């Protein structure tokens, strides 16, 4: 296993946090984060930013009226109107 410096670790960070890295790279990034307070701090910052986005923008659901309107339009379509 190769040792990553900060630049290399940061280059993988986005993919690491999205869980899109190979197990080998995950292990390498993890080792670097365990040893580097700087990069760990930045990783936490990114993580809380993404979580904030999910909380702020991910709660909205399709309004009931819209759902009903779509269902009605689909039924009308199915009847061939």
């Amino acid at each position, binding site marked *: 296993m190769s040792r990553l410096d900060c630049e290399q670790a940061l280059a993988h960070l*986005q993919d690491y946090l999205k869980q899109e890295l190979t197990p080998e790279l995950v292990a390498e990034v993890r080792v670097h984060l365990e040893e580097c307070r700087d990069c760990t701090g930045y990783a936490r910052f990114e993580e809380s*930013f993404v979580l*904030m*986005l999910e909380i702020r923008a991910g709660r*909205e659901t399709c309004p009931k009226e819209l759902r009903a309107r*779509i269902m009605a339009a689909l039924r009308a379509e199915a009847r061939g109107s």
Partner: protein
Amino acid sequence: MAEPSAPGRSFDQEALPHLDTLYRVALRLTADPTLAEDLVQDTMLKAYRSWRQYQPGTNARGWLLTILRNTFINDYRRRKHEPVAMDLEAVEPHALYRSLQETDPEGTFFSQIVDAKVLEAIDALPTEFREVLALSDIEGMPYGEIAEALKIPVGTVKSRLFRARRQLQTKLYAHAVEMGYIKPRETAP
């Protein structure tokens, strides 16, 4: 190969569960609740009419998002002024974090910004950034599924996501400084 499925029961089962996702993505693309509703309804009708082209067992969410996105680009986008991308090529990934490291390493100032401002900042991103950010960070979709839905390479998804996040963070930081939630950094990055 299996017979293409007829619309009806299978459409209801496969497509309707994704209405919330479609609505949220439509909200971010159009930045307008009324347009978002129209876009979702148009998308569902188009999907229903072309349901025979859908391969059963494949990713219905991605298939629907492709229709939604194409409908938006073709019929909705030109109604709205298109925001321009900031030039962030030279910005290092952690430039903002660097300047917050001493004062607010956890980025707690984000939590002081009201929901409406966060959404407004997302909606002011260029479409290419906004759609990737919505699918990745709001819907939690993996790169591969986003690439498939938007018909772009995975590498493009990654770089757009990176730039979208930087641009959004920069905007929210500027807003937080303006509102006095956080002290401005002494030196520009």
